[in-house]
């Protein structure tokens, strides 16, 4: 049930935010401070989420095969691989290491 609550809250929140952008007069959100924050908050969230989903299991910090997978994704990004290749390389490397008993 709590999952459905989360889904409902997220769906409504995300939709309202999209709609606000289309409906609100530009000046309201175009203030420099607001814009700078809006640009930087996603950076912070994505960085924290990336780190957490790579280095945590059930609330504790761990280093496992996912770290190698993420490193592979980083290499793919540096090499300018397409989006899907980036994700696939992370998955394949992680699976490979686990298959080898890592």
């Amino acid at each position: 049930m709590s999952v459905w609550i989360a889904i409902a809250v997220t769906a409504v929140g995300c939709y309202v935010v999209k709609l606000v952008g289309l409906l609100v007069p530009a000046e309201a959100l175009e203030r420099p401070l607001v814009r700078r924050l809006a640009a930087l908050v996603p950076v912070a969230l994505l960085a924290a989420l990336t780190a957490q989903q790579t280095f945590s299991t059930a609330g504790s910090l761990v280093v496992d095969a996912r770290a190698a997978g993420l490193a592979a994704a980083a290499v793919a990004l540096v090499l300018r691989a397409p989006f899907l290749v980036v994700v696939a390389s992370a998955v394949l490397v992680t699976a490979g290491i686990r298959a080898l008993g890592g």
Partner: protein
Amino acid sequence: MAEQTVPADPPESSPPAGPAPGTGHDRTPGSGTGRTPGSGVGGAAVAADGPAAKPDAAVVRDALGVGIAVGLSGFAFGVTAAGSGLSLLQTCALSLLVFTGASQFALVGALAAGGNPFTAAAGAFFLGIRNAFYGLRLSQLLALPRAVRPFAAHWVIDETTAVALAQPTRRAVRLGFTVTGLTLYVLWNLTTFLGAIGAEAIGDTNAWGLDAAGPAVFLALLAPMLRTAAERAVAGLAVLLGLGFLPLLPAGVPVLVAALAAPAVLWFKGRTSGRGTADAVDTRTAIPGAGRPGSDSAGTAPRGEGAEGAHKGRGEDSTDGGQRSVEEGR
């Protein structure tokens, strides 16, 4: 800053022959009068002052490229969500109703980590706030009737914005937005469904390394956003906060704490350097990461070692092809 970017838009909508008779607004998609696909008439008139009319086929090709590449990654979401314990119905509901990839992954990740529904939703919501800023820009470029906006709003995401902003004319903007939105929405939901079914079929998704898909997606979204020192500092600080508080706070909360890295870095910058540099940053981030997903899928932009490598900072700033095309589009 705001004043500089806003006026940049109207001329952008006028390049094609339209402006003189004042019928510019009526060039709805499909009303291909005389000067449709790059027809020399309208195009030549404006060839001198920048982007001229772009053939519809080229717009559609760009839009399909982004839509298909990113749409296919719904498979990763479906697998991740199912692997995190969500039901097929819940997984598909997220893709149908939320339709903002990063927020969906964030929500699923937070729920899987045991977060309560509201902190999990808060993280996803904050991640979705950038869409409001995309909408601001798109509302000027698309110039949609108010009645249509509630329907168009659902498609206001990274990818549609990136494609739309890169177009030279209003007709192309509308076409790019619509084709990208439609392709992505259909494919993303289809592949979410297939991924969720597949995840159930293959059993232990972790054995297949599929738990690495989520972080990899985030990294791919993040990498092109790390252009300035401020952005890298925010990323580095956020990683420290997110991991540091992870063992201490309930699931979902550390990510929200990590979001404070953004105001913290801004405040610190404000103290150390004057307004001048702050404004310089603002120019570059006026459209938060708009060039990002398009460039991801086109395989041009991504760079950076990722979250952990963020502190190391790499000097290169100007190689972001996607961003550049967005700049040109304005």
